[in-house]
């Protein structure tokens, strides 16, 4: 009887280990909570759905301690990934999507109004992120981080004159093979439309086609490498000379590599805002409002911006970070410019979205 072989033993041990791991994993969830919180808010759990690594390490533990509640965190890696799940009916109490996604959620009647009386910290928000077109009176959303899109360049290898051309440097043959382009159809078309002097929210097909041709020419002349988040590490290590980067990521690059600088071109750029919202089907809206107020507070916002490197929506925090001796003092990327006439916010447009998605594939596969 050689039946009782190692295979069966492995199987037996494996199942025992699985049971152990389940206990271990589930045990991590069953933290002690306060029954007082349950009676005050109706429930003692808050379900938070936000981009990965978007808070300081202390934000959530401190909130849990202070209010005697339990926070369940889930992460997404793009607004669209989040949308797919929320649209399918998954329930969360607080989401942190971007401006255009908030616009789409509002259009589909998926958000509920905030209880402003519970959010006194809203007064600390900086003007540049308030009352924007996606939510004109900030009835549904409270800004969390914001920024723009611009060019990170190596001051040692790029002529100061050349960089003055703004996005046009991406058609300068001198830098062929030395550029990274951010692989996103929205940002790509934003840049091309800005170079051509159009609005980035145009629904004029001719303008979009001209932008498409500009991108094709860019693709053929400078042969950029299309990257997404790898750009942060790669530019910090100085792998290439020029890259399209979000200002928040650029701030991280500039702090890591002193040769790098950042510019938001004069042609205009995209101002983006990631904001906290409460979905209609939230199970615990009262606690959600409490969390939003907490996340807006000076201490919480300071911790978040220090950990993530994105510009805070809190005025005092912005000043604190950029003043002499602050984490981002003399960092050209951290604080986005406010009130520049050619800067715009994205609007959500179903038809255009599908059109540029297809055109972008054609550019890259060209």
């Amino acid at each position, binding site marked *: 009887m050689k039946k009782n072989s*190692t*295979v069966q*033993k*492995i*199987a037996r*041990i*494996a*199942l025992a*280990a*699985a*049971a152990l*791991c*389940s206990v*271990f*994993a*589930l045990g*991590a*969830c069953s933290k002690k909570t306060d029954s007082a919180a349950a009676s005050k808010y109706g429930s003692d759990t808050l*379900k938070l759905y936000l*981009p*990965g*690594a978007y808070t300081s*390490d202390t934000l959530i533990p401190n909130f849990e301690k202070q209010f005697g509640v339990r926070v*369940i*965190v*889930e*992460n*997404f*890696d793009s607004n669209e*990934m989040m949308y*797919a*799940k929320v649209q*399918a*009916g*998954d329930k969360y109490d607080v989401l942190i999507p971007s401006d255009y996604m908030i616009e789409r959620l509002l259009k589909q009647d998926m958000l509920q109004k905030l209880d402003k009386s519970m959010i006194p910290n809203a007064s600390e928000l900086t003007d540049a992120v308030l009352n924007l077109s996606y939510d004109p009176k900030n009835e549904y959303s409270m800004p969390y981080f914001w920024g723009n899109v611009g060019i990170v360049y190596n001051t040692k290898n790029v002529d100061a004159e050349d960089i003055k051309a703004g996005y046009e440097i991406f058609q300068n043959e001198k830098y062929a093979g030395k550029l990274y382009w951010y692989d996103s159809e929205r940002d790509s078309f934003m840049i091309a439309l800005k170079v051509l002097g159009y609005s980035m929210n145009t629904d004029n097909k001719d303008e979009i086609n001209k932008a498409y041709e500009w991108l094709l020419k860019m693709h053929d002349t400078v042969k950029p490498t299309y990257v*997404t*988040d790898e750009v*942060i*590490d*790669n530019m*910090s*290590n100085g792998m290439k000379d020029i890259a399209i980067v979000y200002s928040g*990521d650029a701030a991280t690059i500039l702090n*890591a590599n002193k040769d790098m600088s950042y510019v938001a071109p004069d042609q205009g750029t995209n101002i983006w805002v990631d904001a906290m919202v409460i979905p209609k089907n939230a199970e615990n809206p009262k606690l959600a409002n409490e969390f939003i107020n907490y996340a807006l507070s000076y201490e919480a916002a300071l911790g978040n911006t220090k950990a*993530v*490197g994105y510009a805070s929506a809190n005025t005092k925090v912005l000043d604190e970070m950029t003043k002499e001796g602050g984490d981002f003092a003399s960092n050209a990327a951290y604080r986005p410019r406010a009130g520049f006439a050619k800067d715009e916010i994205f609007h959500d447009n179903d038809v255009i979205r599908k059109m540029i998605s297809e055109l972008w594939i054609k550019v890259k596969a060209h």
Partner: protein
Amino acid sequence: MNKTSKFWSIFSKTMMGLTLLFFYLPILYIIIFSFNGSKSLTRLDGFSLQWYEKMFADPVMMSSIGYTIAIALIATAVSTILGTFTAIGLSKSGKILRSSVERVNELPVMNPDIVTGISLLMLFSALAVSKGFMTMLLAHIMFCTPFVILSVMPKLRTLDPNLTDAALDLGATPFQAMTKVIIPQIKPSIIAGALIAFTMSFDDFVISYFVTGNGVQNISILVYTMSKRINPSINALSTLVIVIITISLIAVNLIPLIKRKAFDKEK
């Protein structure tokens, strides 16, 4: 003769050596960078244990290891048993049944994960199931079983059907025929299927992402969603997984040895 076998021995040793080097070069790289002094995943800046501290202090990271291993082990066990039984059944079934099940079975293997993920998201939403550990486990069983069947089927086809028939003629029940005659012959392919199923479950991000909920996140979800600010704590996590797996494999191989020795001594 001697010359060829000597050549063969040298050839096979170099080949295995190079293969192991190829497979373990990135692993070594991951381990080294888990001790990196800076946030970079590609440039070394001194030595530090900060990423290990960060990992052990993060309850989400620690629970993700638990979820990943638990789901991978249970999904592998279930799909290996389910897949093997089904494959044996199919091999004795008619051609139409067999090939139609086989074709459906291949769908999750060849569909992009996003399609499988979205289709399951729609299914679970339509059934109004609350998402979490169970839905993730069901989804993993769903995409792991086809790999077991794909692995076992070809071996089953090369078996001599007369052996099973003989066993049945001699009065064995079909269950006995299966466990005593068929399974011993296809054991290597069952093991291969189980290993592949385990790998698939361990590594899956897209499908898991769409079917999970209630804060149940496996290692892959953690890695992919932090891709923007990805940092060496992920390497520390991977190193911990390597250590856990290595220790358990050694334990599985050593425990029988120690037992046998103790048994011999008693004698």
